[in-house]
């Protein structure tokens, strides 16, 4: 067994600091998802509408956010907003802003996809049974849309959690940053700690994302 330098985690409150870092990552993701879902539902519904100008603008927004690397967006908001507007958001606020913009864009596309995937015949057979427009949406269309949407939006959460590993670049002390600090601080006493510590980080990310991913899979199967 090679020396993984795992003993550094037992020094001081290192393991607790790592967990606190993980919590920062999770907190940012969850707040961003909570913001993304309502915005995404509104934008996605608008994307299925008839207003061509609005649809074009939303499409550009979606593509812009998708093409831009998240790190560039983080830098624009964190460093750029000070220069442009004289407003200095903290790293965590910047991260929430960027992740919400990103999540809302992705979510809008998921909502649009879910809505247009309901075949026209579902509306027709519902109306043929005498259901009103409102009843058709309430009993037939919305439940089917949500069933397609929920597993997909849960997957979006795991993608966000993974992407929070970038925000150490704008000075947020999350799990990756804490790991770096632990390794740096123990460079002399445990020069091989990098592998072990990052391995633990990997496991923690895995433990956070795996149950979420399982839940998504379970719901997908249940509501197929």
């Amino acid at each position: 067994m090679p020396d993984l330098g795992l003993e550094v985690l037992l020094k001081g409150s290192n393991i607790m600091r790592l967990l606190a870092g993980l919590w920062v990552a999770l907190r940012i993701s969850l707040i961003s998802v909570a913001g993304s879902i309502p915005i995404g539902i509104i934008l996605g519904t608008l994307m299925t509408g008839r207003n061509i100008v609005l649809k074009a603008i939303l499409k550009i927004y979606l593509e812009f956010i998708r093409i831009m690397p998240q790190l560039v967006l983080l830098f624009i908001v964190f460093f750029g907003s000070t220069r442009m507007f004289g407003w200095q958001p903290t790293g965590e606020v910047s991260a929430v802003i960027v992740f919400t913009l990103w999540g809302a864009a992705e979510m809008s596309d998921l909502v649009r996809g879910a809505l247009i995937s309901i075949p026209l015949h579902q509306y027709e057979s519902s109306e043929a049974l005498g259901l009103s427009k409102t009843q058709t949406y309430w009993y037939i269309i919305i439940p089917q849309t949500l069933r397609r949407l929920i597993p997909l939006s849960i997957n979006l959460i795991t993608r966000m959690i993974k992407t929070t590993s970038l925000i150490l670049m704008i000075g947020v002390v999350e799990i990756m940053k804490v790991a770096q600090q632990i390794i740096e601080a123990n460079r002399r006493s445990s020069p091989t700690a990098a592998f072990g510590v990052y391995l633990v980080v990997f496991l923690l990310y895995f433990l956070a994302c795996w149950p979420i991913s399982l839940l998504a899979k379970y719901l997908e199967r249940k509501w197929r």
Partner: protein
Amino acid sequence: MEENILTVEHLRKEYEGNVILDDVNLSVKRGEVVVIIGPSGCGKSTLLRCINALENIQSGTIRLQDEVIEAGAKNLAKIREKIGMVFQNYELFPHLTVIENILLAPVKVQKREKKEVREEAVKLLERVGLKDKAESYPRQLSGGQKQRVAIVRALCMNPEILLFDEVTAALDPEMVREVLDVMLELARQKRTMVIVTHEMQFAQAVADRVLFIDEGKIMEQGTPEELLQHPKTERTKQFLNIFHYEK
């Protein structure tokens, strides 16, 4: 018993400049089974969809008893309760079980007692041989089973008239029979039905009257014997010949 349930007068339907139905006149009496045949694209499915106001029409009137059926009309939902429609692709609601599919409209639209409708639904399911499938989801059923559920769903609204739009066209051959048998049984119960189909032998067996539609017009109509065995027009003969094989 000479009461007209359904009356279609001078119906004209255009779509993007093309005439789909042209001066179609049709009346269906209580208890009558009318079968509509014709080549694909002739407008026969569109006619059924017009009767249920799923398509808007350019001129003419469609009446169910005394009430005019019109897309966008205020009482449309009320009239549609009296028209049961079964589609080619079943169109069950995939997120609801079989029994929920059946109960939805009677309970939510007609505001009937859930318990009472359930009893009726179970009886009907039993008649079509699907009592044990009440709690299944549509995806767990075969095509023929889904179509039988769709028929029960339409029946549970106690409609005045049933419309069948090529209900066996999407089925595997061995499942066609089970669906047609249910429809034959309904004909024996003197249900009023308008059936669009490509099954000529079935048409022969079930119909009181057969209509041949081509290019948006009713070309010929008569009893099954008259129309299917001794067609008068050249066009009808040609069409029926498609179903004949000789070596």
